[in-house]
């Protein structure tokens, strides 16, 4: 079953999300809002990864051929999975990274809030050193 929309659709949506994220990161004063912008950027990267996994031919280095254990290609597919799964694994890791990043970033933001009484990123950069 072919996908309903072509690759370009997904790439354009991802590009737009990326731009929105960049805008949020650049213009917001509130540190929590900046964090939201970062999440948008990570999401757009994820859309790209999953879209490429769906549409684009996997590179030879991603395939089971690259696995060092000598084995026939059929058996390798059973054990190591399809080469396109790489895109999904990357997407899963991006999600994990986003979770870890959100946790640590909010810890830092809470620390800033408690020591400075605000979460305005401009003021925080003015007070450094």
């Amino acid at each position, binding site marked *: 079953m072919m996908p309903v929309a072509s690759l370009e659709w997904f790439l354009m949506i991802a590009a737009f999300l990326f731009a929105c994220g960049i805008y949020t990161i650049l213009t917001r004063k509130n540190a929590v809002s900046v964090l939201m912008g970062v999440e948008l950027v990570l999401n757009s990267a994820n859309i790209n990864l999953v879209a490429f996994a769906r549409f684009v031919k996997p590179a030879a280095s991603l395939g089971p051929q690259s696995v060092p254990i000598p*084995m*026939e290609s*059929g*058996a390798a597919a*059973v*054990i190591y999975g399809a080469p396109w799964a790489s895109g999904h694994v990357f997407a899963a890791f991006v999600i994990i990274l986003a979770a870890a990043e959100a946790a640590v970033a909010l810890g830092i933001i809470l620390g800033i809030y408690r020591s400075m009484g605000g979460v305005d990123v401009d003021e925080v950069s003015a007070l450094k050193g």
Partner: protein
Amino acid sequence: MDLLLFVRTHLSFLKSWPDWIVYVLVVFVFAFAILNTLVAPLTGISTYIERRLAGRVQYRWGPNRVGFRSLLASLPITRWMARLADKQPFKFLGSKIPGGLLQFAADGLKLFMKEDIVPTGADKMMFKLSPYIVLAGSFAAFAVFPVSHGCSATNLNIGIFYVIAISSLVVPGILMAGWGSANKWSLFGGMRSAAQIVSYEIPVGIALLTTVMLAGTMNMNEIVTAQRSGYGIESAGALGWFAFRYGGLMLIPFLIYFIGGCAEVNRTPFDLPEAESELVSGYHTEYSGFRWSFFFMAEYSNMFAVGAIATTMFLGGPLPPYPVQWTEALFAGMNPNLALILRFTEGFAWFFAKSYFFVLVMIHMRWTLPRYRVDQLMGLCYKVLIPIALTWFVIMCGVKMFRMETTLPRATAAVEAHR
């Protein structure tokens, strides 16, 4: 039973329609049926049962007045019917319906007629939007429950993972309700509720993970199929259910799941978010009338969902406690259409009975047990349930590995076949 195929073969006039229309229609009917049997009226009946049970526990009557007649008498338009019901030929109607049974209908009517209050200072948009999210999150989980033998609205490949994922939609909805109300008790109740639900998601997730590991699939229909046999018996009946497998070792994840599930629906003994003595009524303090009833519906449908997940993952879902192969053999000789109906009814009856049993247990727990303190609650989750669940998960993996090791000759043959 593949829904599309089933409908195509049995309703011939649909043959010329495009696939997607038929599919949407069928799922819509299915979803509508679930909404109108398992969610909305069941909430009403559950409240009646809950109040009667509470009455018994507290040595008093529950609702015992509102029957057919008083409902009619309450509406100006139907008052004449009530008067008619007092007359001789219809008098039996009033006495046949148990008193109080229609209390929920009267309550529903009352909620429907009530003034819709949005407090000043509330964020109107968020106040009005949150019931949508909460109800959508708790109702969408019903899409994959196998309500009868091999029969679910959609047969998702990631079944149980989807249920865990879509249920988490409820948490932002609850925070939204608490935030939008502009009431400190609502906000605090929402925060507590969110913290409690997300915390207990972990032991619940790990307990369900144990079952997924044993079944080797996340598809709920396939998990049910995996429970048809066990202990090396082809038709095992209740012995094949995951809760009773491996000599009772699986009872621990089952218990952890049930405790976590009770905590996730925010009811006593885990009802800190709406502890009446501290926070008025939790995140839905400011809600009134019909808008409030959606939260209520979401609570009861969540209770049923917890029971349904426990049933499917640990107690065989629609499988009866006797070997299902017996009835299958019995139905095989019948008219295929009749057999289909009987088979569906059998599965649905067992699924419903088992799931509703858990709802009754939860209701009984509410009126029997005192409330936890907030530190005890979090301690129970993070210091008791999560360590036990993780340890038990590893132990069950080890047991499963041992079992597979004993049947290794077959496995080696599988490897050799691929070489």
